[in-house]
């Protein structure tokens, strides 16, 4: 009365039940393992039921007597994959939403494959034709999805490696790997007689190497400076005082910004701030900026060490009777570097001034911004 398929899945289900009991007895930390095992028991049970109900997909009258039924069904891993997907889904419910989503993905893929496979096996009496029919329907789905998945895995592995090795190391590694790929592909194309299995083997070895290196480096973690910079919140922090981070971006002055059409260039040289004002000339200590209008100033650092320009733009109320300085600043700029600072001052100087431009860490030199 039990069909072959249902026996197999009932076996798995029973085994999972037994193992989960043993697991319960022998382990302290049980939650997740138990969920997985009981999940396996339930899902294998469901598939066993499905197998039973459909008599392993055979034995109905038409299914046994039609010409198409002559071709023997091929073996299929999809019921197994479906079981696995269900387990992942159940584990996902108690752990990460991502795991849950992966479970759904596996289930959908397994269902689609299983359905189309069993349909195609009965499409005609010709096994070859049936295999072709399956491909016709599924390849257009399988190829792009698989390709995306493989590309994603490779990209993630590669990025883990790059984040773990040192800055210079990553550059060298990048050059070496891309050269290897280029050389390998050139050799393949020079020797068209090479066997596809050889190419596939080499590609597989390369991919496996990459993925395992990715997993290893994922365990090692990112290189020190990245970890520290992230902890310091360096990429987002808006600190306008002296720079406390050791690993701030040293190349900000190379970023793109509108460096022309500014009202003044503020230059730090020999510990002294001066302004080169459009239409007036160099060496100024004052610049006049229109009220309530975003205005750009270019900061140029000619000092030997890195500095930032900080603008004091008045005060703003933060709570009843409490005000806070409005500050804005450039990032740390290396020697010779330039960066634009856009400021907007809403009140005239006689209301909330004086408004100033200063360099944190360098005392006693500033530029006054006059708002009429």
């Amino acid at each position, binding site marked *: 009365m039990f069909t072959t398929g249902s026996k197999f899945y009932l076996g798995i289900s029973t085994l999972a039940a037994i193992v989960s009991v043993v697991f319960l007895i022998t382990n302290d930390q049980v939650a997740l393992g138990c969920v997985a095992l009981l999940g396996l028991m339930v899902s294998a049970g469901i598939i066993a039921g499905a197998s039973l109900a459909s008599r392993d997909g055979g034995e109905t009258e038409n299914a046994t007597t039609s010409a198409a039924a002559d071709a023997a069904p091929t073996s299929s891993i999809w019921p197994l994959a479906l079981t696995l997907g269900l387990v992942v889904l159940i584990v996902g419910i108690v752990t990460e939403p991502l795991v849950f989503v992966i479970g759904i993905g596996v289930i959908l893929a397994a269902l689609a494959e299983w359905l189309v496979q069993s349909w195609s096996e009965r499409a005609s009496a010709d096994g070859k034709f049936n295999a072709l029919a399956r491909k016709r329907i599924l390849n257009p789905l399988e190829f792009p999805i698989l390709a995306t998945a493989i590309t994603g895995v490779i990209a993630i592995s590669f990025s883990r490696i790059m984040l773990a090795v040192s800055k210079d190391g990553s550059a060298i590694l990048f050059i070496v790997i891309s050269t290897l790929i280029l050389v390998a592909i050139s050799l393949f194309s020079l020797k068209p007689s090479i066997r596809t299995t050889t190419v596939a083997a080499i590609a597989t070895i390369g991919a496996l190497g990459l993925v395992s290196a990715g997993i290893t480096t994922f365990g090692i973690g990112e290189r020190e400076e990245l970890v520290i910079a992230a902890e310091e919140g360096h990429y987002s922090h808006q600190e306008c005082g002296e720079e406390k981070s050791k690993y701030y971006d040293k190349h900000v002055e190379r970023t793109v910004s*509108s460096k*022309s*059409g*500014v*009202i003044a260039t503020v230059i730090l040289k020999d510990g002294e701030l001066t302004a080169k*004002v*459009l*239409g*007036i000339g160099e060496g100024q200590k*004052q*610049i*006049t900026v*229109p*009220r*309530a*209008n*975003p*205005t*750009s100033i270019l900061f140029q650092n000619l000092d030997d060490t890195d500095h930032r320009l900080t603008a004091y733009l008045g005060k703003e109320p933060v709570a009843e009777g409490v005000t806070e300085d409005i500050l804005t600043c450039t990032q740390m700029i290396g020697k010779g570097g330039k960066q634009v600072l*856009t400021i907007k001052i*809403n*009140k*005239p*100087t*006689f*209301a909330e001034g004086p408004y100033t431009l200063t360099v944190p860490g360098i005392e006693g030199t500033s530029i006054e911004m*006059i708002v*009429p």
Partner: protein
Amino acid sequence: MMSKAVEEIKEPTVKKRNPRRVVAGLAGLSGALFLASCAKNAPQDTWQPKGENAQKIDDLQKPVFAIAGVVGVIVLVAVAVVIFRFKDRGQPIPHQTHGKPVFEITMTVIPALILAGVGVFTARTVFDLAKTDDTEMIINVTGQQWWWEYDYPVQDGISAPIISSGQLVIPVGTKVLLRETSRDVIHSYWIPALNGKRDAVPGRVHTLRLEADEPGIYAGQCTEFCGLSHANMRMEAVALSKEDFAKWVDAQLAAYQSPTEGLAKEGEAVFIAQCSRCHQVNGLENANGDPIISAPEENVLAGAAPNLTKFMSRNTFAGATWDLLNKTCRDNVWNATSEEFGAKYLAGVSAECLNVADLRDWLRNAPAKKPMYADPTKLADTGGLTRGMPNLNLTEDDIDKLMAYLLTLK
């Protein structure tokens, strides 16, 4: 029924146009255009340079215009000759030639030479006009919908910042550098008698050099379409002799005099209540003696409204579109000789000279006078901020008081 419908679709009678009449009409039209270009009262005439840079442009454009004119006439005549001489009268197709190298090369070389010649002089003028290193005075010019703000940074002869709008006051014979920018959209500053145009672009500072040879008023116009009241976004450059300019600076920096009594005093209170949230009057204080600081950035989309501290020292208002002087007084200033002009301009606007009608209209309902997006029910897009000055629904009483108060601002 039937017969009526048929009647209606009867073919319309086509009047055959008389070609002579068309030619006569066109000739009349172009004649009128030609005459219009000779108008006497054309303050924005590009052919009458009144300053160094405008002169440079004129020196370039006149010969280029002449050359282009000659070429144009030659081409038109040649085309006319070809049209009439070789008209199809059924004559046989003439002998065809394929290529005449000498002719072709000549016809390429001559225009190339002309263009190269024009190009050299054009490039030279472009670089001349861009020169700023011998600047003698700088003024920040900020455009917004639909008026220009001027502020004078502290520099030789100006001991504290000055802020004004509409009329740009400059000393004659002085190389003035305008540093233009905008608070909202792109505008363009153009005083035809003094120089070419230069766009005022938000977030950027562009320079334009002006220099006036003689005292006087030079009219201009925003020349980059900037919205509803673009046509009402005008400006004037007022050139004063150097001595008069110094007097103007002193007057601009003179301390604020709060009116002591009467209608003007009441007007000050109305102004504080109704107007000072947008308009700054430097020196105006509240009852505690604290300065009143306007907040146009919270009320107007552009973030600014004209500073009215010395409002009556100007001759025009609201984007230099309306006169603050009545007809007689205006003519008296605008038609003054260069010697007399300065003193007349510096006198500002007196009660006798005030153009009461237009200013009252403005206070009564500004957007009715100058189209502005200021209807409070339609400001959802801008978060309640107006473009321009809204209708404040003032009573005639309040307007009387405000008129008296505004007259004291000079």
